């Protein structure tokens, strides 16, 4: 591939991710509003929020690590997007594969954890402790699911996994071939979004939004940007693993938004679990489904 073309792809992929991610944020807020019989925010609300936060006059910082943490949180996802194939663009997906992607997705959490740590606020530290615990909870089913898919496809290369699913149309989709893994993956994906009932680490009424407690201005803005990327990454990853990726952009976006709409419609109906209940839930049902699914694959 021509280097210029590759460079263009590497630039476009995060940019698309950001724009689509903002729409996804909007969709989640709109769904929440509709479920609560409200109107919900206007079309460009996510953009307004981000611009406003970045243009705040006061930018309170607790130190260098606080700043670097936010940079890492954004940068990690920007890098992860280039490993996630979209229609027409593969970026460097072939050079990393799905395990690398999974680990790159942990970099933002690590960055955030460092940044929050320097804020010297125990609410934030408790939030991070809970976030890491939640990660321990949902990553176990997620890893089982990814093992199953990668083993069935015989590769960790996402481009190949998508190509294999697209080869035979609907019948070769991951969700059709491995329905149990698809269900387990959906639950794990929901938990990794950090929305109700799994939002133990935000818990506004309990630990004052946990990691975000001392975030203001561009720090909070960075987290808003990160959230756009997060929603995009998780839903596109699910689409690539189970719904055959996207052959066209329309197809691709439709699937990604639909996938995200499922947890969004469930989320706002429930209150919050306690940490240990989340662990218990995650380690029981999706793990069980996932293991049975993997047994079928093997």
């Amino acid at each position: 591939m021509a280097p210029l073309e590759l460079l263009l792809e590497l630039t476009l992929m995060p940019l698309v991710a950001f724009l689509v991610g903002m729409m996804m944020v909007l969709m989640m807020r709109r769904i929440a509003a509709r479920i609560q019989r409200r109107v919900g925010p206007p079309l460009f609300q996510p953009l307004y929020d981000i611009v406003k936060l970045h243009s705040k006059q006061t930018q309170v910082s607790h130190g260098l690590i606080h700043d670097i943490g936010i940079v890492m949180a954004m940068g990690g996802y920007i890098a992860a997007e280039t490993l996630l194939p979209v229609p027409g663009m593969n970026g460097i997906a072939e050079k990393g594969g799905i395990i690398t992607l999974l680990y790159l997705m942990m970099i933002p959490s690590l960055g955030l954890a460092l940044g929050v740590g320097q804020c010297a606020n125990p609410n934030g530290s408790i939030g991070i402790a809970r976030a890491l615990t939640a990660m321990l909870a949902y990553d176990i089913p997620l890893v089982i699911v990814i093992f199953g898919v990668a083993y069935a496809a015989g590769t960790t290369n996402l481009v190949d996994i998508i190509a294999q699913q697209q080869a035979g149309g609907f019948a070769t989709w991951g969700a059709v071939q491995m329905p149990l893994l698809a269900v387990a993956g959906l639950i794990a994906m929901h938990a990794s979004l950090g929305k109700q009932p799994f939002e133990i680490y935000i818990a506004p009424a309990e630990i004052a939004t946990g990691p975000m407690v001392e975030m203001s201005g561009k720090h909070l803005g960075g987290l808003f940007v990160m959230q756009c990327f997060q929603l995009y990454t998780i839903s596109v990853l699910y689409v690539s693993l189970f719904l055959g990726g996207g052959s066209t952009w329309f197809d691709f976006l439709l699937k990604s938004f639909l996938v995200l709409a499922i947890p969004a419609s469930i989320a706002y109906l429930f209150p919050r679990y306690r940490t240990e209940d989340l662990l218990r839930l995650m380690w029981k049902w999706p793990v069980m489904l996932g293991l049975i699914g993997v047994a079928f694959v093997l």
Partner: protein
Amino acid sequence: MSSINQIPVIEAKKGNPLARVFDELVRFCRSRSLFILHYCTGCGAIELPPAMTSRFDMERLGIQPMVSPRQADILLITGYVSIKTLKRVILTYEQMGSPKYVIGICSCTVNGGMYWQSYATAKKLDEYMPVDLYIAGCMPRPEAVIAGLQQLMDSIHAGKANSWEDYYRNYDYYLGNQQKLFGDNWQTPTDVIAEAKHYNLLSKGTLGVHTRLLEQHQQPLEALEMRLGHNLKEPTE
């Protein structure tokens, strides 16, 4: 068009057109994205849930509740402010990031309301911090709250909601009132004077008698700068 004052005059626009567009965008976004921190001190708080939920839905105006002062743009004070509470209100206000706006809801924040005679209540909120908007009433209906918020949005968009600068410009006045209530030892962790310098808002009213009194006993909390310390001498043991 009866009076000459009402004839609109279009002022010649100056400066870099790009920067003007950018400023306009920033002002617009600021007005359309407001995070509120509701400091619910009194009965007015009961009117906020209806304003947020399905009946009136503040979120369609881009207004949503936030939890900590760092994240918030608007400080909503919904009722009487006792002297003990006022200390916390001031701390919270100072921790918020500017541009920040204060809205006093209910009569109590305007003049003490039914607590006028109470020894323990601060009567006028705007003696202690600049208030952008009062929504009077006992209590105001959610419609009034929404109307007030829309008015605030308009003035932010017009670039007129700058009262937060007043806190830095006239810090001596506000501090004086605070000292009158809390005693001479009053101090918050925020170093307002240093911040005023940081924002280039230091002016005639910033320093005065009261700030001198503050400086006498203040132990300024300077940020812990990262340092290597190799240039220092080894401690002699």
